[in-house]
């Protein structure tokens, strides 16, 4: 049972797990999906990529920012069966750029490289962020590392 205590202007309530078992009756204001002020995720409501998303870290703003944007945009707008399959050139350019800055984009040979991981995760963020997910997108996410793997080797 919850107990309530008052200490001056401050109220203190102790609750047990059972007390909080019932759903909350507190009402929250409905979110406006088109609220222009809201911080957006990776994909904006218009379908464009939000380059300023904190989830991208410094990828879009660093020295390889331009290459990254090209590669990722190509991937994002790709309509191929194997999504991003026509973007090999851009990804290669991005890889090359990143290799010039090993400090910023650490490449781990044994594990999946940072760039792959981030692109993958950005892609997965895209998937989780977007409302409508098509199965093809899901598939391409798994195939993408393969493509990148071949680029690397």
């Amino acid at each position, binding site marked *: 049972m919850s107990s309530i205590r008052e200490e001056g202007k*401050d109220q203190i309530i102790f609750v047990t797990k059972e007390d*909080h078992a019932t759903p909350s009756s507190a009402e929250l204001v409905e979110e406006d999906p088109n609220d222009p002020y809201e911080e957006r995720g990776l994909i904006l409501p218009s379908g464009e990529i939000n380059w300023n998303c904190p*989830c991208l870290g410094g990828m879009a703003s660093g020295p390889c920012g331009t290459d990254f944007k090209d590669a990722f945009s190509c991937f994002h707008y790709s309509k191929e069966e194997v999504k991003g399959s026509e973007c090999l050139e851009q990804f290669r350019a991005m890889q090359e750029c990143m290799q010039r800055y090993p400090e910023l984009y650490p490449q781990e040979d044994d594990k999946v490289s940072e760039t792959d991981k981030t692109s993958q995760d950005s892609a997965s963020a895209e998937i989780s962020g977007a409302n409508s997910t098509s199965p093809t997108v899901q598939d391409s996410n798994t195939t993408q590392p393969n493509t990148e793997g071949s680029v690397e080797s």
Partner: protein
Amino acid sequence: MLKCRNVWKKLAPLARASSTVCRQNVRRAGLPNGRIPARVPVAHMSTGPTGGGGENHLYVLLVGAACLGGGIYAYQTIKGDQQRYQDRINEISSRSQKAATEEPTTPIQSEPPAVKASKTEAVPEPETQAAPSPEEPSPPVPDVELAAAPSETAEPPPEPSPPSEPSPAELTEPPPAPVVESADEPVVEAPPEEAAEPPAARVVEEEQSPPSEPSPAELTEPPPAPVVESEPTAAAAAESPSAEPPEPQPEVVAVSGVDSTPASLKVPSHTPYLLIGGGTASFAAARSIRARDPGAKVLIVTDEPDLPYMRPPLSKELWFSDDPSVTETLRFKQWNGKERSIYFQPASFYINPEELDSAENGGVAVLTGKKVVQMDVRGNKVKLDDETEISYDKCLIATGGVPRNLQVIERAGEEVTQKTTLFRKIDDFKSLDKVTRNIKSITIIGGGFLGSELACALGRRSHESDLEVIQMYPEKGNMGKVLPEYLSNWTTEKVKREGVKVITEALVKSVTCKDDKLEIQLKDGRLVKTDHIVAAVGLEPNVDLAKSAGLEVDSDFGGYRVNAELQARSNIWVAGDAACFYDIRLGRRRVEHHDHAVVSGRLAGENMTGANKPYWHQSMFWSDLGPDVGYEAIGIVDSSLPTVGVFAKATAKDTPKAATEQSGTGIRSESETEDTATSPVASSTPAPAMEQHKDDYGKGVIFYLRDKVVVGIILWNVFNRMPIARKIIKDGEEHADLNEVAKLFNIHED
């Protein structure tokens, strides 16, 4: 050539007509300074004075007025040009004295005429290069044409041809010939023959020579000026069929460039984006600008010697590091095992300030060790402490603040101030680390975030070493201004358990130095003897630029007063600790937290690139008091407000350590935003066995109310629920039962 002649043939009648009318008009008016082309053949047209009627007169009048106006304009411009020519010659002669070879001078001479001639003179140009004297006819022509084009900055006609005021008689002479291959020229060139249309020529010239625009006057670096001017030459020359000019020109470019580079110009004199201050807000803005404006050139000017870094670890993680060289590497191990540097990015991320202008894809350059001392808002430029001036398009002021000091310490004399640390920067961390290894007792004055965190950090160190750590403050308990009393007391007990001697309700009366030890006299009579003092008594926002920039300073909160979009004045934004901004939801405030610096810096960057968004995403803050107690907070968290706290008992799994392990991040504000991109680290580490807290306040949520609306929330040992808290504050609703609201947080879950 043929083409031009055809065109000339077509336009000749028109030329003749207007010139005739002109002459007649001038004769009538009797004005001596009308520049009439004397060479135009006299021909009588049907629209002679005998023909037509009133409308004819009107026509004649208009044309005459235009001629007159043009003539006067040309005269005046030439006069001005003469002066500029003189100045330019003087400058060049001083520079050409440095020139090693004879060559530069000659090409330089031929170069400006080429510039001025734009493409018209390209052909006669190579021919006249070798022989300076024959250049006379051509340069005077471009002179006049250029007279009409004040945008041309370089006026030095070749020295051999001194008269820079060519008689208008020569105006029409060469152009017919040099109205050259450049296909787009001819139509445009022919009319400018007429004194009647110098303005048109000016327009033409401007269109033709945009490359020379970038070096406006001698405001910007002189060395690039001859370089740039040579470029249009090269460009112009390139258009001519003759291949000669382009070759010597680039060489000239190189030579003149090399010879005349002054040593002081390492700093770009203009930058599109100028960020004053090199801290968290500045870096966040730089990142935002680069993300939104592709190829943006951002210059950060900071008076610190370091690249942008984050401050929270300076009072927490860095002290917990086992690495003895931590003061050099400044790397800390996050709870999840991942190591990172406090620097946001390594040095390779940035480009050199000297290279900023020429960087193809732009970049972020950091100018360290330079302080901006003056700001000229009307002129859109700033002045540094070494007299350098930098002009900008958009400017961000993110100057943060300086730690406050106690007056009693300031007045106590050098001996005392030498043993006092005001903690904020990397240097302060390094020196404090060194000091604490050699002393026996240290006192921290201040019971807020910084003071308490440092006390806990040093308290931990006291376990290993012999260090006595004392913390004193005027409040009744740690975080007394933030936490409600019961929690503040609980926290104070926690701090004591970390090994800190806490002295509450302590007001410092005086500090003296005796026998190399400091003696702190408190107002209630107590005396505290210690070796070193750390004063953590607040931050004074840095508003040094307010006066010169004409910016408003807020009297209630301090800092620059800005609107909801963080704008102070046109082209000037302020973010971070120094910004007193209007929060649409919570009212005007000034926030001194890390996440706020990130959020406001990011927002300022967005607005500098045209977003026009108000401060909307509420920033959060957090504090850890040792590995067992941590909380996250959002909004206005002021202990003077009425609060409602909802608590459950804490289990061993509820600690800050476990929270970061789960989310895979080290800095807690990042855990919610970066979570989407970074794959969560699978936390298979069992929660460390810890004693169950006997206290009541294990974990819970505390709501801060203002007029029955929740304006602040503290998540007490409850983590990764900030989005819910943010939502509640954003809604700004009056909730009847806050227990119901607390249910939303699932405090009993992990």
